[in-house]
């Protein structure tokens, strides 16, 4: 195949109509929040926990995409080059997550028991060397500093290649990706401990970080799918063909199974060992969040597993995007289950207007930032050495 046979991507223009829609979505989220705070006067912990949950979800979409891009770069894979700019731009939203986290900072004492040191219990006292505010903040800042640096630096390398292609481009991209993966491997786990596991302060599980990572990865794949389908549909990137969707579908399928594998590994070992210190985590969820507990498994594993099994399912844009939406909601529920039982407690936690409405604000913010960044560069990295390969392949 020659380069000219690949349909040209149209430089994206962030139109007014789209902005209006995003504005409406954001307004819905804000109204839900204001309603929750002033009209319904929901318990403080529930509000703070929701802000925390959405900040995490916002971050995960970008971080997962950045991981996806870098790991594909390291694997010398090519299929993703056509949609690489989507992943790049998603990665650039990472630093803005700081804002959303910081908004929730005043409520940290509602979320994390270990923050108010005056009445630390015996078990938490043993952990103060790790779980203390200054160190926690240092970690918070360093995670974001590192991730942001890599997101922007990798983007810079990639965009620079559009204008002045260099021979060492791939080498540089790869070595930087390598560094990022090393840092990500550590920070993805530790951040999950810091921001999620320590909500249930007494509880511990070695697998937890990897489990959270797998959920994040699946969630961001579903967003990549949704954006790809939309860009294809609205002719912004006609270069996306059904092979790319097929591959994205495979990732969604495969990593949904991987997520379920980690879920069951953690659950089964704790269930089998039957040590009260560990089982408490699941007892709380099975007893008091019974419906969601099973919905989580169904929506995040059974549904994509059955729905994406056939070849046709992965190649049909509309069908694929419906599955992606369901899985995305599923991983929101997964995070909900990770946060709420510990931070809010079953007496006060519920799914109401706040839980349903608030994500729209964050989604709109995410899309707004994404589109702003996407607009800034060419929609496809044409000078990437593997670019033609990326349009010229077939799934068996």
């Amino acid at each position, binding site marked *: 195949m020659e380069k000219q046979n690949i349909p040209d991507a149209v430089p994206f223009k962030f139109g007014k109509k789209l902005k209006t829609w995003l504005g409406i979505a954001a307004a819905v989220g804000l109204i839900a929040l204001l309603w929750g705070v002033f009209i319904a006067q929901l318990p403080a912990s529930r509000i703070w926990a929701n802000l925390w949950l959405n900040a995490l979800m916002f971050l995960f979409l970008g971080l997962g995409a950045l991981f996806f891009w870098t790991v594909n770069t390291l694997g010398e894979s090519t299929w993703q080059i056509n949609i690489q700019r989507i992943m790049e731009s998603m990665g650039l939203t990472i630093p803005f997550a700081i804002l959303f986290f910081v908004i929730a900072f005043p409520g940290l004492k509602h979320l994390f028991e270990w923050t108010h040191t005056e009445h630390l219990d015996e078990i938490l006292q043993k952990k103060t060397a790790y779980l203390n505010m200054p160190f926690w903040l240092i970690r918070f800042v360093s995670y974001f500093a590192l991730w942001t640096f890599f997101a922007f630096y990798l983007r810079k390398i990639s965009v620079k290649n559009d204008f002045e292609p260099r021979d060492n481009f791939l080498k540089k991209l790869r070595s930087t990706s390598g560094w990022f993966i090393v840092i990500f491997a550590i920070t993805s786990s530790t951040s999950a401990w810091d921001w999620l596991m320590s909500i249930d302060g007494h509880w511990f599980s070695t697998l937890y970080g990897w489990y959270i990572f797998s959920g994040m990865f699946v969630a961001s794949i579903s967003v990549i799918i949704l954006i790809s389908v939309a860009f294809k549909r609205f002719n912004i990137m006609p270069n996306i063909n059904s092979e790319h969707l097929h591959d994205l579908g495979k990732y969604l399928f495969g990593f949904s199974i991987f997520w379920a594998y980690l879920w*069951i590994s953690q*659950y*089964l070992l704790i*269930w*089998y060992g*039957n040590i009260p210190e560990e089982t408490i985590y699941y007892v709380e969820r099975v007893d008091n969040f019974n419906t969601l507990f099973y919905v989580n498994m169904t929506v995040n594993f059974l549904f994509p597993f059955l729905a994406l*099994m056939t070849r046709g399912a992965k190649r049909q844009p509309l069908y694929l995007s419906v599955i992606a939406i369901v899985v995305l909601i599923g991983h929101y529920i997964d995070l909900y289950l990770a946060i709420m039982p510990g931070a809010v407690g079953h007496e006060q936690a519920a799914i109401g207007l706040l839980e349903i409405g608030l994500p729209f604000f964050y989604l709109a913010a995410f899309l707004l930032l994404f589109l702003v960044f996407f607009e800034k560069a060419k929609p496809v990295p044409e000078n990437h050495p593997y670019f033609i390969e990326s349009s010229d392949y*077939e799934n068996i």
Partner: protein
Amino acid sequence: MRAIVYGYFTDELDLLNAVKELQNKGIRIADVRTPFPVHGLDAALKLRRSHLPKVAFVGGLIGGTLGLFFQVWVFTKGWPLNFGGKPFLSLPSFIPVTFELTVLIAAFSMGIAFLLRSNLGPGSIPDILDEEVTDDHFQIILSEKNNNLSETELVEALAATGALDVKHVNAEK
């Protein structure tokens, strides 16, 4: 007695062109034999997608279901035993064996289906026309059976595509 006409190419791209050429002339191709799966040949020959994945799916479904139900039966009806205070019907415990049986039966049902469907198996004697097909010959086989052309016409048509060493034999079937 029906005649079979065959010839070969040493490059798979020539083969693909020849296949298209023959099809444009309305000649039906009895078989193409190659040393490795040639990319694009399935489409050129308009082969239907294989049903083997479905066999695997059904096999896996049967394996998994039987595996799970057997375990459930053993622990609720067959001989319920108390292991470490766990409930008799402890589903998480049954997942590993269920999974393994799903994979086992799915894989083997598909493997066996493949052999049966392709008429391959221990003791199967193939009708090899050219031993180099497993080396570097890409062979096209035409048959009088499904074409209205005579033997000589088929030989000419095949030779016209650039096939080397076009031969014909009279096959029994």
